[in-house]
Structures are given as structure tokens and as C-alpha cells.
């Protein structure tokens, strides 16, 4: 209960290292979703986005340039998925840029890949990417393969898929 220099020092070291560990967990691990600059909001509508989720990366040529901010059904009644993306505002993105929902590896996470076009006009903040390519859904792909295999052997059209 008296002041003890060594004990006080040890308690100080304990508290500080504990706080440092907490800070590491919160800032380095928790906050590191996308640390680059955002500011440019773009929209894109897809027929099918598969398993794309909020905060999925937006990528140009393999480099992460932004993230998906929001996903909802399009409000114009077309039942397409409208994806809101937050992208590095220093980039000049042509208005004939293509957006595609791609997959990392066979079973990996899905992300949005942008392929910039050659147009001279740029997309402004809040612009819409017109050219989109939907996600490939593996179940449908497998279904098609089975269908085409089965279609060659027997006469039933579209009767494949049963096993």
C-alpha cells in the first residue's frame, strides 16, 4: 500500500501494453476495410450480383480502388440490382467503363471489377456505369452443362439435371 517504484512501473507497463493491444485490434484489424481515399460515387445496375456484399472491393486491373457501399433493388421497377460504389475521386473514369461482378478463385469472395474504356468524356460524381456484366452463378453454369450433356443423349429437351 506504500508507493513502490517497481510495482508502479510494472502496472504502468501492463496498462500501456494492454491499451496498445486494444488499439492494434481496433485500428489495424478492425478499421482496415478500405483506407484509400473515396469520394466518387458511381452506380451500376446488374441483372444478377450473386453473392456480392456491402464493403466488397472495387478493383481496376487487380488494384483496389474503392468499395461497394450499398446494394438494393433498382427503384425503376426493372428488378435489377443497383450497386452503389465509393471510388477514389482522383481517378478519371471514362463513361464507357465496364463493370463486372467477378469472383476471387473458385469459391472466393465476390468483387466488382472495372474495365476502363477509351472515351474522352469522364463519369461525374453520381454517374451511372452503363455497361455491366452479371455475376456467374455456379449452380446455373452446372445446370447448363448438365443440360447440354443430357440433351445430346436423349430426346427430352431440358430434362437434364436429375441425378
Amino acid at each position, binding site marked *: *500500500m506504500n*508507493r513502490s517504484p517497481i*510495482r*508502479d512501473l*510494472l*502496472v504502468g*507497463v*501492463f*496498462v500501456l*501494453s*494492454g*491499451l496498445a*493491444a*486494444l488499439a*492494434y*485490434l*481496433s485500428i*489495424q*484489424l*478492425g*478499421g*482496415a*476495410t478500405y483506407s484509400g481515399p473515396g469520394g466518387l460515387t458511381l452506380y451500376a445496375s446488374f441483372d444478377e450480383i450473386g453473392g456480392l*456484399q456491402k464493403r466488397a472491393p472495387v478493383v481496376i486491373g487487380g488494384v483496389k480502388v474503392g468499395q461497394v457501399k450499398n446494394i438494393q433493388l433498382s427503384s425503376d421497377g426493372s428488378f435489377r440490382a443497383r450497386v452503389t460504389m465509393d471510388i477514389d475521386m482522383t481517378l478519371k473514369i471514362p463513361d464507357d467503363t465496364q463493370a463486372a461482378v467477378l469472383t476471387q478463385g473458385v*469459391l472466393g469472395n465476390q468483387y466488382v471489377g472495372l474495365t476502363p474504356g477509351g472515351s474522352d468524356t469522364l463519369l461525374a460524381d453520381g454517374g451511372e456505369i452503363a455497361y455491366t456484366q452479371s455475376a456467374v452463378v455456379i449452380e446455373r453454369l452446372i445446370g447448363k452443362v448438365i443440360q447440354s450433356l443430357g440433351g445430346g443423349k436423349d430426346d427430352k429437351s431440358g430434362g437434364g439435371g436429375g441425378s
Partner: protein
Amino acid sequence: MLEFVREVGWRTVDNVHGLGGIALYGSRLVYETLAPPYRLRRLLDELYNSGVLSLAIICTSGTAVGFVLALQGYNTLVRFGAEQSVGAVVGLSLIRELGPVLTALLVTGRAGSAIAAEIGAMVATEQLDGLRMMSVDPVDYVTQPKALGLALSMPLLTALFIVFGLFGGYLVGVGLLGVDAGVYFSSLENTIDFRNDVLGSVLKSVVFGMIVGLISTWRGYTAAPNSAGVSAATTGAVVQASVATLMFDYVITALWGVGI
């Protein structure tokens, strides 16, 4: 038959009485924590006893848990060709579950039992009565700093446990099994979410700290004043604090609403 019913009735009354006692005692602890005098020097002593003295066991256990998580995770993931995700497996299991729970169990065994035994021995040797005679409140002077010191140590120890676990996972995953170091950390950083994972983990450790502090000091404070009473208090503190920790773990996880 009547005797049996009477026994059931008595046990019910006794348990409810005990619950009421611990609730009253808990509210007194909160009051003594908020109201002056703030016994900072006593608190520092208790931070040393339950925090600094638990460091060695927390760091070694954390590293060992990280070792085994990386090994187990790698062996499972490599079947799917997904050994790149070993960082995410180690990180998520440590931060969400194993960090807070194992730290709480270890601290219960290391510091909670010591607290219960010390206060129980003070009861048995009439030291608390001596304090009361000098009009010093034993809850204010003895048990509150102990409970608060343990409750404050718990989140810090949990964070250290997790960081040492990640380090252990790094040693085995990267050093032994050949996962790329950058891939280990990037899969970790991309998977961990601040609100769902880190905040939930801190919340768990804070609640566990309060539970363990409350139960250990209460069992010591209410120990029967003899050597059997001290031993029963120590055992009871460890058993009840561990069970309460595991039960509250489920409740917090369910209420916190962990995302997909």
C-alpha cells in the same frame, strides 16, 4: 413427503435469498466505485495482483492457443485449397470467442481464486471485523478495489491474449506451414470487422471482468469463518465464475447480433 416439499421450499428460498444478497452486494460495489473516496493506491495494488501477475499465464496461453488454431485451421483448410484463409480463421476464432472466454477462465483460476481465498481468510481471522471496529467499511476498503482491479484488468488481458494468439498463429502458419506473411495479415485485416468482432470482444471481456470480480469477492466476503469455509469459498468462486462466464458468453453473442 411433507418433509421433501419443505426441503424443496427451503432450498428455493435459500437460493433466492443468495441471489438477492449478491445483487445488493453488486449495487454496493457500483456505489463505492462511483462515490468518493477513490482509493487509487489500493486500486493500483489490485491491478498489480490481478493484472500484472496474470500476464505470464495470459501471454503463454495465448501463444499456445494461436499455435494450435493455426495448425488445426491449416489442416482443415488445405483440403479445400483455402489455406490462404488461415489468418482469418485464427483471427476470427480468437477475437470473437476464444480470447474473451479463455482469458476469463484463466483469470478466474489465477486471480479470482486468490481474491476469494484472501478475503475468506480475512473473514476467518476476523480482520474484516477489526476493520469494522475501526469504522472502516470492508466493502469500500477491501473488496471494491479487488473487484474493480480485476474488472479493469480483464479487457487489457483479453487484448493481450488475442495479440499473442495472432502472433502464435503467425509463427506456426507462416514459419512452419509456409503461408505467405502478407497473405496471413491481409486475410486477417479483410475479415475482421470493427463493430461485430472487435467491439463485441471488448464488450464480452468487460462483462466477464465484472462477473468474475463480483463473484470472487462475494464468495470470499460471505465465507464461513473457518478453514473449511475458505476452501468452499475458493472452490465456489472458481466454479460459479466459470459457469457464469460461459453462460453470459452465449447471451452476449446472441444479443450483439453477430453478422453473417
